[in-house]
């Protein structure tokens, strides 16, 4: 069984947020849902200021507080390390959301049809689309995955269920990389099997010192950061993102 992890090279990240866009397109996440989010920090005082960027996917922890508290077992950890959400079983209590220290969960507050970025029924839009609803929904996202055959991929499926980064389980099971990793123009994101000594992630972790976010909580995240430092009291956000639905 593979032991998947992600390594993020903070030396390379320029905060372009292509990963955020790629995740959104691949997983059809609705408005204000940022499964992948990139922090933009500024530190220091002029003339010694310094700007850096930190991508924040779901950490897919080995000791996940979200999976522990789910009352019905909709949020669970797979054997290959991915923490998945079964949107067929989720009852929408949002306990996983309040339990997550990293704030990676997003709830479907609205009906998905009311949460698209474009109103496909709008007349002006229909002049362009000719009435066709473009292949907006990635058909992979409706399939069951894993040996347990549970539907765990994709966003905006149902009103009233919770969702988060899935490490693109529908791609990983086909042997592909998650969308954010695949689309990063600077190879700042890496994904692979920690049990394979020749994978990029294993090599990176051997070569550079790494850290994980909020390690003192004991959540054992599977997302490692190399080439930088964790956000400190000095780190100020350049812009405060409050994208509300």
């Amino acid at each position, binding site marked *: 069984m593979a032991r998947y992890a992600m390594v993020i090279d903070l030396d390379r990240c320029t905060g372009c947020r292509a990963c955020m866009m790629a995740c959104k397109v691949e997983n059809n996440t609705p408005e204000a849902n940022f499964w992948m989010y990139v922090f933009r920090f500024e530190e220091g005082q002029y003339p010694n200021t310094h700007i850096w960027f930190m991508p924040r996917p779901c950490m897919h922890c080995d*000791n*996940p507080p979200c*999976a*522990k508290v*789910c009352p019905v*077992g*909709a*949020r*669970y*950890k*797979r*054997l290959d390390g991915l923490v998945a959400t079964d949107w067929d079983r989720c009852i929408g209590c949002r306990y996983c959301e309040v339990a997550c220290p990293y704030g990676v969960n997003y709830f479907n507050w609205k009906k998905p049809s009311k949460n698209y970025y474009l109103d496909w029924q709008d007349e002006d839009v229909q002049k362009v689309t000719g009435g066709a609803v473009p292949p907006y929904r990635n058909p992979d996202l409706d399939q069951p995955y894993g040996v347990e055959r549970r539907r765990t991929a994709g966003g905006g499926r149902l009103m009233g269920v919770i969702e988060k980064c899935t490490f693109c389980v529908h791609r990983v099971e086909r042997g592909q990389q998650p969308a954010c990793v695949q689309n990063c123009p600077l190879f700042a994101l890496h994904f692979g099997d920690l049990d394979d000594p020749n994978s990029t992630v294993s090599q990176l972790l051997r070569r550079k010192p790494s850290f994980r976010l909020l390690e003192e909580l004991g959540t054992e995240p599977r997302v490692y950061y190399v080439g930088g430092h964790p956000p400190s009291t000095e780190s100020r956000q350049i812009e405060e993102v409050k994208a509300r639905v």
Partner: protein
Amino acid sequence: MRTVLTISMIVVGFALQITSYFFLAAPWNPLYSNPRVPFAPALFILGVMLVFLAAVVYELLPEKQVQ
């Protein structure tokens, strides 16, 4: 007779609670997200209810001897 029924209901109720609790999952293992028996929590609640219904049985059942 009434006492026997009451006590057996209490024992069965607690036994049902304990077995369905440990049937549900090995504690503290996030990999285990399905109960081993479907509707096991319903069985747990049934156990709780049995224990308290025993009190009703004890009060309601008539004495064996004729009044």
